[in-house]
């Protein structure tokens, strides 16, 4: 438990310490994460950026308890994920983590409302009706609740996904290219909700993206390349991000 002395472990909503993820062996070995230490502050919106193969998705998957590290540690709140078995990890995802994926976020057989309350239903908990109404109002879905995903547009589907991620008041929400499949207008709406959830509701969000315009909604951007953190930027805007990416690319 020597790493618990690291100050990041106590202040962040989630983070990684010397995280290493290796795929393959010998000649085919790939180090997707090569000693990443990072902490995500509570109540902030962080974007993780980097070129393809930089390890940004792997980092997010490990942080969210979807994948395990080869070495190093990841934590959410005061829980170290690498100490949990599958059942406990599942409970942690259900109760402490919200997810927004790039596509295929919703269960096709359930209505929008059922999709939103899914994690709580799985836990056998009653959703807080006031909070539910508030979230549904924010994402503007009040009149779509009984619809199935196939009856919603791509933008509406992502808004349902954001609502689901927020509904159980998780410690942290992970978003993996949440606007990757959307037109720019719908994408801006979804990013707007996420921004609002952080600023006005105090939610913590970590988003993986390769779109500088999307990253510009964040409070902080972390740049990854070849499995390492190579740069950070607070209060970013699109131009600075593009500049930074150009530097990294050259």
């Amino acid at each position, binding site marked *: 438990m020597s790493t618990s002395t690291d100050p990041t472990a106590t202040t962040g909503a989630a983070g990684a310490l010397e995280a290493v993820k290796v795929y393959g062996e010998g000649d085919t070995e790939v180090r997707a994460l090569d000693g990443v230490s990072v902490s995500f502050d509570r109540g902030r919106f962080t974007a993780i950026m980097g070129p393809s193969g930089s390890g940004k*998705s792997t980092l997010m*998957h490990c942080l*969210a308890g*979807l*994948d395990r590290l080869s070495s190093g540690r990841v934590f959410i709140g005061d829980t170290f994920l690498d100490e949990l078995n*599958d*059942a406990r990890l*599942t*409970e942690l*995802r*259900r*109760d402490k983590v919200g*997810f927004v*994926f790039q596509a*295929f*976020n*919703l*269960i*096709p*057989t*359930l209505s929008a409302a*059922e999709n939103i309350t*899914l*994690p709580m*239903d*799985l*836990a*056998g908990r009653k959703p807080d009706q006031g909070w539910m109404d508030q979230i549904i109002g924010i994402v503007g879905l009040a009149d779509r609740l009984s619809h199935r995903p196939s009856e919603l547009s791509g933008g509406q589907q992502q808004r349902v996904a954001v609502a*689901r991620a927020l509904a159980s008041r998780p410690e942290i929400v992970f978003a993996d290219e949440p606007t990757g499949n959307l037109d720019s207008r719908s994408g801006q709406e979804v990013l707007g909700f996420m921004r609002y959830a952080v600023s006005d509701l105090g939610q913590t969000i970590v988003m993986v993206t390769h779109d500088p315009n999307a990253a510009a909604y964040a409070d902080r951007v972390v740049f990854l390349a070849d499995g390492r953190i190579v740069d950070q930027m607070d209060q970013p805007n699109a131009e600075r991000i593009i500049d930074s990416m150009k530097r990294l690319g050259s």
Partner: protein
Amino acid sequence: MFRIALKDLFARKRRLVTTGIAVVLGIAFLTGTQLLSVTLSDSIKSLVGDVYSGFDSVVRSPRTQETPFGQPIRTLVPDSLVDEVAGVDGVRAAAGVVESPGPQVVGDDGKVLGGGFGPPTLVYNWIDDDALRIGVLRDGRAPGADTEVVIDFRTAETLGKQLGDQVDIATTQDGVRAYTLVGISGLGDDGSQSTGARPLLFTTAEAQRLVNQPDQFNYVVAGATDGETQDQLAGRLSQALPEWQVLTGAAFTAESQEQISQFVGILEIFVSVFGWVALFVAIFIIYNTFSIIITQRTRETALLRAVGATRRQVVVATLVEAVVVGLIAAVLGLLAGLALAALLLVLLSGFFTIASTTPGLTPGVVLLAVGIGVGVTVLSAVIPAIRSSKIPPVAAIGEVSLDRSGISTSRKVWGALLIIGGIALIGTGLAQVGPNPLFQVGGGAVAILISVAVILGPLLAAPVSRVLSAPFAAGGRVAGRLAGENAARSPKRTAATAAALTIGVTLVTLIAVVASSIKASADDAINQSVRADFVVATASLTSFGAIPPGSAEAIRDTPGVAEVSPVRFTLLRLLDPVGVAEASSTPTTTVPAGQLGAPPDAPVGQDDFALGIDPATWFDVVDAGELQGSPADLVAGTMAVDRKYASDRGWRLGDRIPVYFVATGVQQIEVAVIYDQPLGQAGIWLPLSTFEPNTLPLFNVDNQIFVTTEPGADTAQVQRDLDARFADLPTVQVQDLQEYVESQTGPINVFLGIVYGLLGLAIVIALIGIANTLSLSVLERTRELGLLRAVGMTQRQLKRTIRIEAGIIAIFGTLMGLVIGILFAIALTVAIAADNPGVLQFRLPVVQLLVIVVVAAGAGVVAALLPARRAARMDVLEAVSST
């Protein structure tokens, strides 16, 4: 294109296995029974050939009565015929043969050996001539006195008896009597073989006495002098004895072998029906599997089309896949069939000698297996293959979506046609309108069962699934809710999966309902029409004729007994116009080569059962309803007839009906009484004054004795007294009315047990189908399941979801089968009742049907175990990140 199809196939071996299992099981059953029956009938034929190998000629009566049990009953020949035969030129030796059932061997436990449906116990007389005697003496000597017996080695082993020991034999003459074991016999050159039957060899006089045929033989056999052929000898004998039937030894053997082949053939047909049912079920499963696979391969197929594959090539690729699956399954099925046959042969060899326990593989069986395996698989894959060819190339870049299309118009039309056609076929079949009623009913049933998969199932699947899932989803439990929606999302798939189960359950339900109706009707009929308090009856079918003569008189002397009325039983042939017309429509037997002399004596007519009754007491022990005519009119040469039976044949009181008796030939029997309420199967009751002179000694024994007690008598004491009277005869039972009902309906239970066991196979195949569909569905829903796991569904919850889905499909299929089975049973009972009022009344076996539902649902959950485990073990990350 071939290479692509094959590569794809072998890249997914598991799919190949699950698709093929249904075919493997069906083929195994079909070929297994074929192989078994071929080997079995070869074995028995060679044994029979061996048994009669010493006979050069057989001389017997031309007068026979056909029976429903296989061998016809033949009148006896007198003692004197032996000398007549012996006096003919070319005859080296002649002997009369006694070959009759009757006495039974009693074990140390006081019970009859081999009661029930086993091979018979037969009495033979000892013949000194080695060639003319049946069997070889292995040990000891011939019976020299009336108290000595020779038994076969298997019976001796079973009893644990040695030479010199006493063997108890139940006889009608003396009760159980001890005979001294003086010899042990067997079949074959060295006496080491056995047909399973139990021959008891006595002195000729004792044998004749025990089977009630004094101074008479069943037939006379002759051995030829050196240089005389069988044909020459038979020719000489038929000239010398024109009034008798003469057969060469070869013809006699061939006739016996033919009868055995027929029996084995019937068994084979009976068992292979279940193989066909299994294959019918398999068709649904294969169709379903291919449909799902093709949906899942949409992108791949579209890509092939985009790079230039023609529609034809796409169809061919799928069919090649089907041929390969079919071939592999056929070969595996054949191997399983061989194993099955070998296993059964080893089991059977414990009962009688089997030449080889290795089933002989014939080219015919191989062709059957391959033909049916490939045929069924390709047939099942044709529609999915054609559908796959309609995938447009542009689908290569779209999302792969589930087949959630509604029910097309053509499907509705076909479904409606199937239902209407099926009902019409069953209706006409049951009403006996049309060329082949049996095939009409069968075809109609198949049409309706297919309609379950085509139209009824898909229409009902979604609403029924949601209703069934409601209890599991109560209180907002997601697993139940998701399971219901998953079963409902693709109604055609759910319906096709459930339909496989529906078939098996339909058949089980139909049989259960019909059996319970038959039992209930028999129960009612006996309770309504039998007034007797006790029935003295033989313990089993094989102890026919075991009630000793004089028993009725003895019972009458028992204190508290009021009336005693014995019943006998026989076969006769009706020569009235209805009977002649009925018989003319069935093929007549031809005289086989090697049979000479007098032609068969029996005129064309319809065979039926009749009871022999004592008119003075019979109408006191049974309630025959209203009578036309009086029991006093039942004198010699008359009969009583059931009202319905008489009106069907146009018989009226006073009519004289020509009837053929095997013992006395054609007699004119007058209808003297018409009664209202039948008892069991026999519509004709002959007073003993008609019965006795006209039937063979075999039948001239009391088969049952009905007993009533005096008012106020202590019935329990009467039963104890009666039991005591028959205590030394294990072949005879004193039954109260309830026991009598059970003994009359008992054989139905044995039959039911066998049928349920065999139909279980169809249900097992259906469950494999459910497992298969679920596995493929799980694969198809990888992303979705990954998402569920990502947002917090535990492995347990996921397994539960899949188990509930399986349970819903299984219950859905079972309920459809239950409803259809009950409807079929109603149709059948209505049709039978319309023809024979009061014979069959509809009765639902509620408890049994509930058990069927619970077992099927439980089995569905078991079928889900593997797919559920696979789904739960799925790597979440791989699932959510796969595209």
